[in-house]
């Protein structure tokens, strides 16, 4: 586990079940304050679910998620909404409110949680939009934005209240190289400039490894590898190596479990 005593989040023995399947079966990890922690793993390992557990949108069956002394699965509804003001989350789709302009989207958290005068809201919104390079796009509607711009606008909204923690759900998926580069740079820049703590959930190995301070690799409901990017990239563990190098076959099989191929094709084997 990350060698730090100053953890914003401590997750212990987290267990979560969906239907019959255990998505997480005893997961432990720490998110160090002020650092970028990446959680990586193949699709379908529940990385997004993990963020929803931290955000309290889903409740774990067992285990604890401590954020600054609050055990999230045990908070009641009102306390949970209060704790969430310390968090920002960037959804995969951006999830901008489609009936509001970019400006109003970024202003939304300020309007509902603060009683700032309009002039000050305007200043904060323009500062946040400037930070993501969209000050000029303030009057556009979300439907008029490209995918990368929508994600940046959503990022501006996520940092509007200066949260302690920001969670990125697959920030690099479906981005062209330019907006990917922009996002990579932005995530690092915002983390360091605003003193945030960031969690990136992703399966884009190289982009993530280039900005993360610490990486956890999860698969089959468990943490299978962790360390600094160098440690993870040079690991000996066969499962982690397969994922990092992108090998088509290995401990994670290429074939979905099935009956014998010859039998399936009804070929008689003498």
């Amino acid at each position, binding site marked *: 586990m990350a060698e730090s005593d100053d953890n914003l989040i401590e997750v212990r023995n987290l267990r979560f079940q969906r239907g019959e399947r255990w998505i997480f079966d005893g997961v432990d990890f720490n998110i160090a304050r002020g650092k970028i922690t990446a959680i990586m793993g193949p699709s379908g390992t529940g990385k997004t679910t993990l963020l929803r557990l931290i955000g309290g*949108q889903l409740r774990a069956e067992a285990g604890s998620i401590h954020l600054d002394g609050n055990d999230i699965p045990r908070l009641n509804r009102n306390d949970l909404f209060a704790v*969430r003001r310390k968090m920002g989350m960037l*959804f995969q789709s951006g999830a901008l409110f489609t009936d509001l302009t970019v400006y109003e989207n970024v202003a939304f958290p300020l309007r*509902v949680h603060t009683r700032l005068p309009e002039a000050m809201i305007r200043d904060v919104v323009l500062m946040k939009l400037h930070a993501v390079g969209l000050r000029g796009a303030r009057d556009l509607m979300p439907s008029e934005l490209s995918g990368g711009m929508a994600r940046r606008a*959503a990022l501006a909204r996520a940092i509007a*209240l200066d949260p302690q923690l920001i969670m990125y759900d697959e920030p690099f998926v479906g981005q062209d190289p330019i907006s990917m580069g922009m996002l990579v740079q932005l995530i690092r820049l915002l983390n360091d400039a605003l003193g945030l703590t960031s969690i990136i959930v992703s399966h884009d190995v190289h982009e993530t490894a280039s900005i993360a301070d610490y990486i956890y690799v999860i698969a089959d409901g468990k943490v299978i590898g962790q360390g600094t990017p160098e440690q993870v990239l040079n690991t000996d563990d066969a499962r982690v190596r397969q994922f990092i190098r992108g090998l088509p076959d290995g401990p994670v099989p290429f074939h979905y479990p099935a009956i014998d191929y010859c039998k399936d094709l009804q070929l008689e084997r003498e």
Partner: protein
Amino acid sequence: MNWMLNFVQRLGATGIETLGVFGRASLIWWRALWGMPDWRNGPTLLVRQLYFVGVYSLIIIVVSGLFIGMVLALQGYTVLVRFGADQALGQLVSLALIRELGPVVAALLFAGRAGSALTAEIGLMKTTEQLASMAMIGVDPLKRVLRPRLWAGMIAMPVLTQIFNMVAIWGAVAVGVDWLKVDAGSFWANMQSAVQFREDVLNGVIKSIVFGAVVTWIAVFQGYDATPTSEGISAATTRTVVYSSLAILGIDFLLTAVMFGVK
């Protein structure tokens, strides 16, 4: 023997599932509707929803009301005139409308027009993660999104129903008095003496408030509970219209039995 066990098992599973849905729907309704009102944003949000569910439903309510009133007068006249009782047309039309047709037909139209729109809107907000991102900003979507819509439905429905009744009676006058030459004086006098405020008008208003609450409850819950895919939203929208219509007709019978039943 085996098929019987299977049948009982399926029955039980369906029963538990149905109860679960009712429980979830009731919890959501309760949480969304009650609690501290938000004096700062609440009124604006409510007015906006009143505009969406109320004003946008006006055209269909007015046009349907007009034609239903006209048809009612025409049909009523052909029967009544045989007994020489065509002066009772005003009484017939107004009682039918104020007690039954007004609340029921307006609610059915409302379910088709506003209910389906509510379900699709909320379902799409869920699919595009807007509800989740709102929750992560620390704003309860039940209070911000669902609550103004539920109240708007309950407020708009009785108003729409009264507008429907008014226009329908006006349509009946156009057909009965202006066209078929029923005596205007006896038309209005019979209506006035037959319609009781508490017995008829107030009960109609109560009905329409109940229908408004039920339709928006079903619509909002179906959207909130929809499977977040395009098929999920289309299924949820269909369910809203079907369940709302059935609920309106079923509840109408119950309310009628209680309000106008054998004393």
